[in-house]
């Protein structure tokens, strides 16, 4: 049966970290939105470790907050341990990270979705898409109910033909205990979307009561947590989408006890066990064809590739306050269960550990992301958007960021407006999407600060200011918060200017701060400013030289970013364009000259030729 005659504006398939942000963003923009998930009880599940943030990802979560997303506030409300990473480095590469209560994280998000106006949730597995005239118009489900939508956002994570391996044992599914979405792959292929395989893995989970903590080193949270959401610009009346009253609004409160993580390490015995059993590992016996990430090697990889390293560090992360389950971060493997058991028992503190769930590797389909526009809409099928792991990324934060952008753009597409495109120089989210659509990826793509050319501009505290114009032009935040951010921007600008222009003993305030920030006694009015304002001002003043250099660089390339390449341009017929470049451009079809220039193998002369051609075509038209 067909469920609805009047199509939804946006249908989101999958309620992982991408799907949740996509559906919230669309609904908050006023689009009538449907979220389909195979299992309502696993909404926003952390399939891997129970932590949000960390290097580059933490900054990205704050960017999500700046664009009206939910991940940051949800982490603040359900976090059980907070740490600011990289305190010894410059402020731009300091990143907040939090351990979350896994179930609390899910329940709060589920509740948020339930209370979200314009959003309907329904439990059904999407089995295929419905196309009409080369566009997607809805989806089919396992219940034989068809849902019609103007746009469809696919956020199915690792569920597309997911295949899990524990040694030689294979199970279909995207996550232990869940099913696999098989027929949807067929639907995408039918629409001409190319699919490839990737793999990733997770470590075993163990019972806390069976851990001997006395042997282990403790890792505590920071006494003063760094939160993800910008609480300074939220008014007291600002709805949190889930009613929480008064002080209880933040789950973690100063003075309340944070939960600790524990550190241990592999032993020589562990190395021996792994080496003796390599042939039984799914990844080493050739069972798995997908490509795994370089940065998240299995324990097999670690012992093989870094054979001279005597031990590898492991972190035991609690999965929540109301559970005794621990995640062994660092021990991902696809060895058979009996070997896993032996391996775990070779680790100090885990001699008696009980396994609750085995480690496994999962292989799944992804759609190489160069098949999308920067709006995350498919180039092959109009009105179809893709976000998250299906695009070849890894990580909750990367997924959420894409989900948010895809949700906003699906809503805009349904309404008929220009898409939200975040530039590389504005945010990690911009780098993420630009890398995906212009370069693609051959391993699960994870964000690193070093992927950003201008990371010094991406300090986590500036996310709201950097993305303010986008938030405003698409009304992604409510008015009071927008006003507060504008006010904050003003304050920051005021102090920046005042420090540069007014003097104290021995020169301008700014120079004094740059010489020795600790030694300067700042004006009392400054001390009265909000912490967020103070920190941003001091950062901008102290690193002014660097930040200016970055801005000059950006300025230089801005004009090429603005030159749009006509959609129908036939690269193969352009005189003077080198064949190699023409083929690449033809295949990747960049949208502007800036993107074209970032494609490897396309050189400046090719860009010059395109520039002349486009100018000539534009002049001819007018």
């Amino acid at each position, binding site marked *: 049966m067909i469920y609805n005659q009047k199509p939804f504006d946006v249908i989101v398939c999958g309620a992982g970290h991408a799907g949740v942000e996509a559906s919230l963003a669309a609904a908050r923009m006023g689009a009538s939105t449907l979220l389909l998930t195979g299992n309502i009880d696993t909404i926003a599940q952390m399939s891997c*470790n129970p932590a949000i943030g*960390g*290097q*580059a990802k933490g900054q990205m979560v704050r960017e999500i907050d700046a664009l009206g997303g939910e991940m940051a506030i949800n982490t603040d409300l359900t976090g059980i341990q907070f740490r600011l*990473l*990289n305190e*010894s*480095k*410059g402020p*731009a*590469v300091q990143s907040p*990270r939090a351990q979350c209560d896994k179930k609390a994280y899910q329940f709060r998000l589920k509740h948020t979705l339930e209370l979200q106006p314009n959003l309907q949730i329904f439990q059904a597995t999407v089995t295929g898409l419905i196309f009409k005239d080369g566009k997607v118009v809805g989806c089919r489900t396992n219940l034989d109910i068809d849902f019609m939508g103007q746009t469809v956002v696919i956020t199915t994570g690792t569920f597309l033909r997911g295949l899990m391996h524990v040694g030689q044992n294979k199970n279909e599914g995207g996550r232990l205990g869940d099913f696999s979405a098989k027929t949807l792959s067929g639907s995408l292929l039918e629409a001409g979307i190319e699919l490839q395989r990737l793999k990733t893995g997770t470590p075993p989970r163990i019972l806390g009561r069976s851990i001997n903590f006395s042997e282990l080193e403790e890792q505590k949270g920071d006494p003063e947590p760094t939160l993800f959401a910008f609480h300074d610009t939220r008014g007291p009346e600002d709805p949190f989408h889930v009613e929480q009253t008064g002080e209880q609004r933040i789950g973690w409160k100063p003075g309340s006890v944070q939960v600790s993580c524990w550190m241990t*390490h592999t032993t020589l015995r562990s190395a021996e066990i792994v080496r003796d059993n390599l042939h039984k590992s799914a990844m080493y016996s050739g069972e798995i064809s997908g490509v795994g*990430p*370089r*940065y*998240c*090697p299995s324990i097999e990889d*670690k012992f093989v*590739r*870094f054979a001279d*390293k005597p031990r*590898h*560090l*492991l*972190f035991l992360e609690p999965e929540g306050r109301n559970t005794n389950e621990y995640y062994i971060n*660092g021990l*991902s493997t696809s060895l058979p269960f009996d070997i896993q058991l032996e391996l775990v028992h070779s680790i100090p503190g885990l001699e008696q550990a009980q396994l609750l769930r085995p480690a496994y590797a999962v292989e799944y389909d992804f759609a190489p992301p160069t098949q999308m526009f920067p709006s995350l809409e498919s180039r092959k099928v109009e009105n179809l958007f893709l976000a998250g792991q299906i695009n070849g990324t890894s990580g909750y934060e990367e997924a959420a960021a894409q989900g948010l952008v895809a949700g906003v753009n699906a809503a805009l597409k349904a309404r008929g407006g220009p898409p939200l495109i975040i530039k590389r120089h504005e945010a990690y989210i911009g780098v993420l999407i630009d890398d995906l659509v212009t370069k693609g990826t051959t391993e699960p793509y994870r964000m*690193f*600060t*070093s*992927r950003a050319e201008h*990371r*010094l501009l991406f300090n986590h505290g500036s996310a709201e200011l950097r993305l303010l114009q986008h938030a405003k032009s698409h009304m992604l935040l409510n008015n009071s918060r927008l006003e507060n951010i504008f006010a904050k921007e003003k304050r920051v600008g005021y102090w920046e200017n005042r420090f540069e222009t007014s003097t104290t003993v021995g020169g301008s305030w700014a120079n004094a701060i740059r010489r020795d920030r600790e030694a300067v006694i700042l004006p009392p009015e400054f001390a009265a400013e909000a912490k967020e304002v103070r920190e941003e001002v001091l950062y901008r003043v102290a*690193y002014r030289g*660097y930040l200016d250099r970055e801005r000059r660089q950006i*300025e*230089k*390339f801005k*004009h*090429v970013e603005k030159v749009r390449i006509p959609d129908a341009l036939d690269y193969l017929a352009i*005189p*003077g*364009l*080198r064949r190699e470049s023409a083929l690449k451009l033809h295949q990747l079809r960049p949208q502007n000259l800036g993107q074209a*220039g970032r494609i*490897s193998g396309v*050189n*400046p*002369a090719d*860009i*010059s*030729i395109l*520039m*002349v*051609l486009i*100018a*000539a075509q534009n*002049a*001819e038209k007018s």
Partner: protein
Amino acid sequence: MSYLGDTIAALATPAGTSAIAVVRASGLHAADLVRAVFGATPPPRLAQHADYRDRSGALVDDVLFTFFAGPNSFTGEDTVEISCHGNPFIAQKILEDLLARGCRPAEAGEFSKRAFLNGRMDLSQAEAVMDLIHARSERALAAANQQLRGALGRQVNQLIELLVNILATIEAYVDFPDEDLPPEDLDKVQRQLDELLAGANRLLATNRYGELLREGIKTVILGEPNAGKSSLLNRLVGRERALVSPEPGTTRDYLEERVVIGSHWLRLVDTAGLNPSAASLEKRGIDKTFEQAAEADLFLWVIDSTRPLPGLPETLAARMTPANTIAVFNKLDLPPAPKGDLPKAFPLVHVSALQGAGLEALQAAVTKLAESFHVEIGDELIAVNARHSLALDQAKAALLEAKQKLAAQEPSDLAASDLRAALDAFGQISGKIDNETILDRLFASFCIGK
């Protein structure tokens, strides 16, 4: 990538073809540039006589310069044209000085491109401009490749290798603070930076115009054993420089000698004969022949005309073209064997190295190739050289900056920003270095990830 807001500079005439070379600068700051170099902006379109002094005040040349105020110039922007003596050294010096004063080296065909974008050309010329950009970029690429084939390329690549290692290390500590990495050794980074700086300085000292002009056109004599290569070298040099004997395999190592032919300096290299069935010692000599050939600008392929036409090893055949190779049929004084066709349409001459016959024809052929060769890439080579010096200067400045930051105990992520600038600068010489290269190195050197 080009940017209309900056001021570009380049050589505007092909070097080596005329007595005068013209260096042109165009863009927003052209008028400031004229004031800075010559003191005042003269009335537009009026050629002025003046001394050109570089930034340090040293006299470079007496020149004629003309200022064109935009939009009434070729590009539509403020433009200055400086005519100096045709000596390539002078043209390069002036170009380097303009770059040091803040101009950007013009990209292939960029003056024409700007003219077009500024509406100084009509639409029908778009295709011609595109062709020009293409042709010039191919030539610039050829010139740059020619340089990189030699010592410069090897040295730059070594420096890049070292810099990538440093960056991968620093980035590992920035991007993976929670990993089990060995303690960050910033002293080691300092030492590596010193090494890099020394390398950049060495290159700056040697990277002046023209290995090609100053050191001569590298001309490799090659051919089968006993073809008369050594005899030919002796004949061209005018004395018994190389050992000659009727035994094939006489020359075991290469030897080099400089000669002037016409107006060109040549570095003549005699090599061990190409004997496919050589034994080990001789083989080593032949390996050296291949090494020499890889850096050659010109080839003299000596063929014994009394014997059937020999084949060419594939690696050589790929590099030898009618534009850089002369087929020298030797032993003209003896009865020739019937000949097959040459594998390519090489220019050919007949000589007797023993008696000296045909030598003028050979010299004429060499002069002709050498000249076309200069016209072909001589001016690009100046541009390439100036560009390389600029890039090396930029790299050096960025490296120094990073070194100071680290010495002052500033966070290493700030120094990383300078190191990236240095890497970009080196990349202007050897081709852009992708971010993936650093990540690859990082993951190969450190066990990262949980």
